[in-house]
Every structure is written in C-alpha cells, then in structure tokens.
C-alpha cells in the first residue's frame, strides 16, 4: 500500500513539473510560450494565469483524492458490517461548487473576450501581404503595383515571408486547393487557409529576426514538409528588399549559369517563372496552369534571396551559427552565406524522393490530367550543376 501511494504521489507531482520544464526549454523555435511579438505576447499574458488557475485546481483535486484515499481507506481492523455515515448529499455545498467554478470561469471569460477583441481589432500599419497556401508550399504576394488587389502583376515570393520588424503586418490568408493553416507561434496564433475564402491575421515581430512555423491543418502527403518562415527586417532594409524583389532577374554571365538559364527556360517553364529569364516560355506554356491542380508553382525570380526552398523544408543556405534557422545575415554570397548545395542538388535530382508528392506522370500530361508537386525531370548531373549555378544568380 505504501509504495503504491508513494508512486501516486510521485505521479501527481510529475505533471506540474513537466509543465514547468516546458517553460524552461530554450531550443524551441516554435515555442508558443516564448512570444517574440506583441500579439503573441498578449495571448501568452492571457493564458499564463489560466495555466496557473488550472495548476491550482489540479493540485486541489489530485492531492484531494490522495488525501481521501489515505484518510478513508478501510482499515484491517474495521468491522465490515459497520457502515460509514450514509450521507446523500449537501445541497448548499453542491450549489456552492457549481456557482464558484462558474464565477471563476466568468472572470476567465471576461479576460478572454477582452484579449480576443483586442487582437482582432489590431490595426495594420500599412503593409498587407496575401498568403496563399497550396500543396505543399506558401506563396506571398505584395501589392507592389498599388492597385489594392493581389494579382500576378504584383511581387510573388515563396517560403520566406519578409516583413518590416516592429510593425503590424496584415495578412490575408487563402488557399488554392485544400485547407492549410498559417502559423508562426512566436508571433501569433494560427489561421486556416481555406480555398474560396480570405482570412485576416496580423503579425508583428518585436525585433528583426527569423521566425518559423509549419502548416497546421492536415493537407495530405507532405503536410509535414510544408513550412513557413517569417523574416523580419529593419524597415529600411525591408524597403530595399522590396525594391529589389520588383526587379526582373539579371541575365547570368557565367557559362554554367547561362546553360542553366537555357535549361530552366526549356524544362521548367511549364510551372515556374523567373522574370527576365523565361517570360515568353512561361506564357506560352500556360503560365503554370497546365500541369498543376493548384495552377501555381513558386515564382523563382529571386529564389536565391530566400533562406529555404521546397515549402521551406530544406535550407537553401547553410545555418552558420548553429541555431537551426537560416537568418537574413546568412543568406546570399554577399553576406558571406554558403549555399547548401547538397540539399538543392538532391531536390533537383529527384523531388518526389525528397518530399512525398503526387506529381503528374508523362502519361497523365498526355491525358491532360494534373498533379500536385514537382515531378522528377530525370536531369543529368551536368544539368543539375548548371541549374544550381543558374539558381544561385537569382538573388
């Protein structure tokens, strides 16, 4: 009996300890308890007291049960026919423990509503980005032509959502195929990306930095490999970045890169666009609509300016400081960044081998059917080298 009760006690202590431990974990880039933006902080400030109330109730109930178990257990010398007091209830007490929790929850409800409406009514400071999910990557559209709409005429990027730090950035989240969900834990809660609908979400990063998240609504084969990164830059750096993104890509000068550009134009234009490189071929091939169910593949015009690729699953540049996140200062040779050739080559060699997808087969192309994800193009090693050389120039 004793050992049993001791282990019960140990178990009872374990759970709050675990919760405590979780707050102490440091190496958790998606930690919801470590907000790095004002909105996430508001949520955290709301939920921390709730956790504490829950912990108190937990202790009361669990230790209460422990106490009952110890105090009222049938002892060996008890007369088995002697019944304990046959209490049927105590109406006052029961009303009390109905009303009291209700009151307590009333307080929590009030605080919840206050925070909810506060967060919902956050005013955007100017920048709105359209976030579009599709199997299995995120597209970001900046209204660079200022017409109030998000179209193909605007700047399109993928994987890295670049924003100015310290500002409320409004996101309009939608999808082109199934339901996904956009989530950057350190900045805000998540919001589903539903096809046919547009959902607003505001994010705001205290400081420049890189904040990561994953798609959080089951979306099929590569749900685990659909990630997103928010790169917050100082406002002037952001302006410079946005300027640069609007430029078309520079024509490569290096021989390998030139070959790669030609290869890109001939092989990749069915789905991908790099403005300034294959505009005509892209248009001829149907502007990316012919072989994909979602009718869109990532715009690669400034591919090399991003930290990750393939739905932000693979690092494009090496993580030099060992924090498992590719930050802005590790991107680009100009910054001293090192291209992660290995992953990029592996991807080009066999995309479905790297990330489970359902791309079109040649037969399906013939039949006019469409697929999801990037197929294996059976490139030779030389072709892969040329493409890598070319892709590097798309900064």
């Amino acid at each position, binding site marked *: 009996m004793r050992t049993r009760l001791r282990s019960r006690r140990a178990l009872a202590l374990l759970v709050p300890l675990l919760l405590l431990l979780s707050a102490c974990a440091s190496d958790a880039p998606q930690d*919801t308890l470590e907000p790095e933006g004002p909105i996430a902080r508001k949520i955290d400030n709301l*939920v921390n007291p709730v956790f504490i109330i829950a912990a108190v109730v937990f202790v009361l109930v669990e230790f209460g049960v422990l106490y009952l178990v110890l105090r009222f257990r049938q002892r060996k010398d008890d007369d088995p026919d002697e019944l*304990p007091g046959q*209490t049927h209830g105590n109406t006052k007490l029961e009303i009390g423990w109905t009303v009291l929790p209700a009151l307590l929850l009333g307080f929590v409800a009030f605080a919840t509503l206050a925070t909810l409406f506060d967060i919902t009514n956050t005013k955007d400071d100017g920048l709105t980005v359209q976030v579009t999910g599709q199997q299995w990557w995120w597209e970001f559209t900046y209204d660079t032509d200022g017409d109030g709409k998000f179209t193909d005429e605007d700047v399109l990027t993928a994987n890295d959502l670049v924003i100015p730090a310290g500002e409320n950035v409004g996101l309009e989240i939608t999808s082109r195929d199934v339901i996904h969900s956009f989530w950057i834990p350190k900045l805000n809660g998540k919001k589903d990306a539903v096809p046919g609908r547009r959902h607003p979400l505001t994010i705001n990063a205290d400081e420049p930095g890189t904040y990561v998240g994953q798609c*959080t609504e089951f979306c099929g084969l590569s749900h685990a490999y659909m990630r997103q990164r928010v790169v917050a830059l100082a406002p002037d750096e952001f302006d410079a970045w946005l300027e640069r993104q609007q430029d078309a890509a520079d024509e490569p000068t290096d021989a390998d890169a030139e070959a790669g550009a030609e290869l890109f134009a001939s092989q990749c234009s069915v789905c991908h666009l790099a403005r300034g490189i294959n505009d005509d071929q892209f248009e001829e091939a149907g502007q990316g609509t012919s072989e994909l169910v979602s009718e869109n593949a990532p715009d690669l015009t400034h591919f090399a300016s991003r930290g990750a690729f393939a739905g932000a699953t693979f690092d494009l540049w090496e993580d030099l400081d060992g924090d498992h996140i590719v930050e802005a200062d590790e991107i680009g040779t100009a910054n001293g960044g090192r291209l992660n050739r290995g992953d990029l080559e592996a991807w080009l060699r066999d995309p479905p081998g790297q990330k489970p997808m359902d791309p079109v087969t040649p037969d399906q192309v013939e039949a006019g059917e469409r697929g999801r994800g990037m197929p294996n193009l059976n490139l030779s090693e030389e072709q892969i080298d040329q493409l890598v050389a070319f892709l590097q120039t798309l900064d």
Partner: protein
Amino acid sequence: MAIVERPTALPELPPGAAVTPRPLGVFTRPQSTTGWRSWLTTIDHKRIGIMYGAAAMFFFLLGGVEALFIRAQLAAPGQALYSADLYNQLFTMHGVTMIFLVVIPLGAAFMNYLMPLQIGARDVAFPRLNAFSLWLFLGGGLFLNSSWFLGGGANGGWFAYAPNTGVVFSPGHGMDFYALGLQMTGIASLAGAINLVVTVLNMRAPGMTLMKMPVFTWMGLVTQLLLVFALPVISVALFLLTFDRLFDANFFNVSAGADPLLWEHLFWIFGHPEVYILILPAFGIVSEIIPVFSRKPIFGYPFMVFSGIAIGFMGWGVWAHHMFASGMGPISVAAFSLSTMFIAVPTGVKILNWMATMWGGKLSFTTPMLFAIGLVTMFTIGGLSGVTHAVAPADTQQTDTYYIVAHFHYVLFGGALMGFLGGMYFWWPKVFGFKLSDKIGKWHFWLILIGFNLTFGPMHILGLQGMPRRMHTYIADYGFELWNMVATIGSFLIAAAMLVFVANILVSWRAHRLNPVSPGPDPWDARSLEWMVQSPPPAYNFDPVPTVSHLDEFWHRKYQENADGKVVRVATGAEAAQPGDSTDVHLPSPSYWPLVLAIALPIIAYGLIFNLGIAAAGGLLVIAAGFGFGYEPSDDPESHHGPHGNGHGDGHAQLGDGHEAGAGSEGEPEAGTAGAAGGETEPVGVASTASATDEPATDAEGSTDG
C-alpha cells in the same frame, strides 16, 4: 418498426412434433440457445452486450497496433519506417477505429447489458432490432477495415476535412470506405439508440421512477438521446461527401462555389455531442463503482443526474470550439469560447461529487475502484487542458498541436477507457460467473496508468513547444526529440499492460474452470438491481419483476434503519437476491433476420465502390430482409409452448394454466432435434399471483425438455 409483432393463433404442438418450415420465410425460425449459431441468432440483450464488448476489444487491438506503428515512426525525427501515405492511413484509421469501433461499442456493450437489468426489465423494447444494431456495427467496422486489403485505408484524418477528402485530393477508395463504413455504424447506433431510449422510458419496473434509476442508466439515457439527435447530422455530411466522390456532386467543390466550412460545421455539430456520447457511459460506470467501494451512496444524486442532462444540452452549443482557427468571425469565436468554458461547470460538479462520495466512506481499493479513481484523476487533467482550449486566443496556439492530442487522450483514454476497464472488472463476475484476479488486475492498473501518463503527459509539452499533429515526422533540433521518445516508450508500456489484462482473463478463467466456485449474485455488496440476480443472470433476467421503492433498491433490501436509526444489514446479498430458477418465463424468439438485414448493407456499400450491380442486389436484399424482419412475429408460433389460458389478453398468464414448462431459463441444451420443438421459449408465467412476498416462479407441470 415491426409491422407484425404479435403471433398468430398459437398451435398446440405435442412434444416430439416436427417443426414445419414457416410459410413466409426461407429460413426456419432458429430455435437453439446454445452453440455458436445461437449467438448469431440471439436477441438477448446480455449476449448482444457481450458481443459488442468482444468486438470492441478486437478493434481496440487493431487501433492499438496502429498506434504503436505511429509511435514507432515518431520515436525519432526524420525516420522513414514506412511511407508518409501509410502514416496518413495509420493515424486516420487509428482515430476512426478508437472512436467509432472501440469507445462507442464499449459504451453500447455496457448499456445494452446493464440498462434493462438496472431498470428491472427482461430485455430491451425491440430485441431483434438490437441484434441488427450489433451485426450492422460489426459489418460496418469490418467493411471499414477491409479497406486495408482493398487499396488502402482511409487517409484523410478521422475528421475528414473537405476538400482534401474529395476525389481530386484523395484518389483511391480509402475515403469511400470511410464514408460508407461510418454511415453503416451510424445507422447501427441510431437503431440502438431508439431502442434504448424507448426501453428506459417505457419498461421500467413498477415503482422505478426516473429519479430512482441508477446514475449509469441516466447517463446511458442521455447518451442515447445525444446519439438520436447527433447521428443524422454526420449522416448528412457523409452523404454529401459520398455524393461528391461517387456521383460528382458539388458540395465541396470550391470551383463550383462551395465553402469547405460547411463540412466542418456539419462534422462538428455531430462531433462535439459525440465526445459526450463517448464519456457519459464511463461517468455512469464510475458513479456505480465509487459508491460500492466507499460503502455509501453517491453524493448528490440529483446533481449527478442533472449535470449529466446539462452536459447533454450544453454539448450542442459548443461545436465550433473545434474551429477557432478556421476563419470564423470574432463574434462566433467569442460565443463558442464562452459556451465552452461553461460546460466545464457540470463536469466539474461530477468530479467533486465523486470525491464527496469517497469522503467519509470506507474505501476498499479493489481493481474496479482503482480504475474509477484513475478516471477521476486523469479526466481532471484532460478537463483542465480542455478549459485552456476554451480560451480562444490561446487555442489558436494550441489547436492542431500535440497539446490537443494530449487533451483528448486524457479524457478518452484516461477517462472513458479507464471507466470501461473498471466496469469490466466490476461486472465481470456478474456477466461471466467468475471474478478476474484482483492481484493481476492491480498490475494491469498501475502499468497502464504509468504507461498512459508517460505516453500522453509529455505531449502537453510537445504541443506547447510547437509540434504540430498529423505529421509523419517532425523537425530535428526543435526540441521535440526527448518527449517523443518518452511517449513511444510509454505506448509500448500500455501495450504490455493490455497483455497483462488478457493474461488476467485467461488465468482467471482457468482458475475458475479448475475450481468452479460461483462468486454469487452479489460479490461486491453492491447497490443496484443487476446484483439481485444470479451470476450470470438467467436469460429472462428476473424471476418476478421487482417492485422498486428506493434508489439503490437492492441495497435497501440488504440494509435498513433499525430502531435506533442506525443503518444495519438485514440480509446478505445472496439472501436478498433472486434464485433465478423460474422455468416458465416467456421470451421472444431468436431470429436470423437481423443478421441478414445487417449483411445487406455492406453489400450495398461494396457495390457502390466497385460495381453498381452489386449495390442493386444489396438494395433488393435490404427490401427483402426488411419485409422478412417485419412480417416475422417476435415470438415464434412454432415454438413449443402451450395455450396461455385466458391470461394472455392482459399480458400475463397465471400459474397453473397448463403451461408447458421447458428448459427456458439458462440456455439449456439446445432443442436441435426435430423432436424438441423449441422448448426454450416458454409461455408467460411470471411468478405467483397476489402473494405478498417474493416468490420465485414455479411451474405447474414440471416437465422439461432436457
């Protein structure tokens, strides 16, 4: 609904007469009550309950193996033990199996077995319909799992959000098996629910008012009413999905103008009451166990009843708390956040009432009691994390992460399953006539408690640290490795604990066969009417149907206030129980039609997927079986019982009317020969006439069939 319920004129067949085939039916009416065939044609609620339980435990094994596969894959990041597609099938089928094929039928098992006994009835209102529910559930469950062999299991998650589950994004048959399989199990549950609602409302023993019913029966009634109203909604959702997938409808076709949130709303309007359907029976079980092993009545019976009713009503107003991140407007979010918080109140009341029952009691920690306390302590954790989800802004961080996985496993495993396991230990002697070993039971309990907490406790942390769910792998170096490994170890410990349970059953059964001592009607000194009959109960349940004057009626026959106002024992359980030796109780006859009708539906389902001709054939079989079912009298006129005298008109025959007695009570050696014409079903003869004491039924003729 049967068109013809009463038999036509009853022929008087002398013993030994051949049984002639019935004019309308292809099949001869089954007669036997022993042998495996008797189980296929039984309409006895007790046997049906046992079969529900056995089937549920089989599916628990399936779902458990699926879970182990999941945990093996997630033990470390970046593993590729099998494909992502298979992983998606595994987690989908694990969820569907555990919810629809384990917890619901386990509830059905207990409710079917116990509710008639607890209200003093001889069976449910529609025994053949009851059998149909069982076989259709089994058929639906096997149909769903046959998908593993026919192209792959369902892979869209148990919640099956559109448009991902449409044909474009889920090609292959997996989701068709899902939709049609659940449609069938839904019909089975609906039929069962109508049956039990009518039974509880209509067939209570004299004197048993609603507020004298045991808490378990009350929770069962609320559960069945929830089923009645929730199942049609998911039925519609599944129809819409099926029509989209099979017939090109546009319900979830966004390019035709659909809004995917329609699926979410329909699903969760069912889905939320569903979780109360899952937990209320276990709450009922615990409400029976704790008073027995505290030796005092449940604290606050009215509050226990009304909190259950409140949960039943309020459960309809919270569904969109599963949709806080779905893009609903803030007003909706606020409303559902509030309603979700307040549903914690009636649930909290129950926890406190259980604790108050234990207070001042004399607690004995038998295995059932351990599991009951396990539910109280573990469900509390799940309930508390649930309250944190109700805080909608916080939920936008929690939803779709492992924090949610932790929550629902604490309430479903730590809650419902613990309750069911405790119930198994508690009622095992009643159902099977021998007790499970308490010693091994305690090993089972502690192993599973530890394994369960190791598996799901750390998931709270994983979720709060940002690990999303429904992913076949997770990001390395994000802090997820340690607790995933711990969870995997815990899951195998759970498996070991369940092996201990199996061992307990085998060991205890063997011990009983070597030394067949009956535990008697009342091994636990319990409180409700099922303990007033022998273990196992006779087929007809009660000798005379008891007249009830108290809540915990059986308890009050054992203990009464003496002259000093002290509650003392006046009879032992064995003394106060019924002897179970009546021989002339009339029971409805077994039947094939429930099985035939139940088989017809999966035939339609296979046909819809593979060959419409087969579906048409299945449809014809449904119509034929429906007519067969309907035209068959609930009592076989061929079955051997003599004239009822003039007692039949008011429903109850008197003794001494020349009834043939037969081997009616215990499922005696079967009347398989042509000579013994259905000796098991006997004329009405429920005990003595106006005697003032409990007299067991005695038969006038005394002859039996063997």
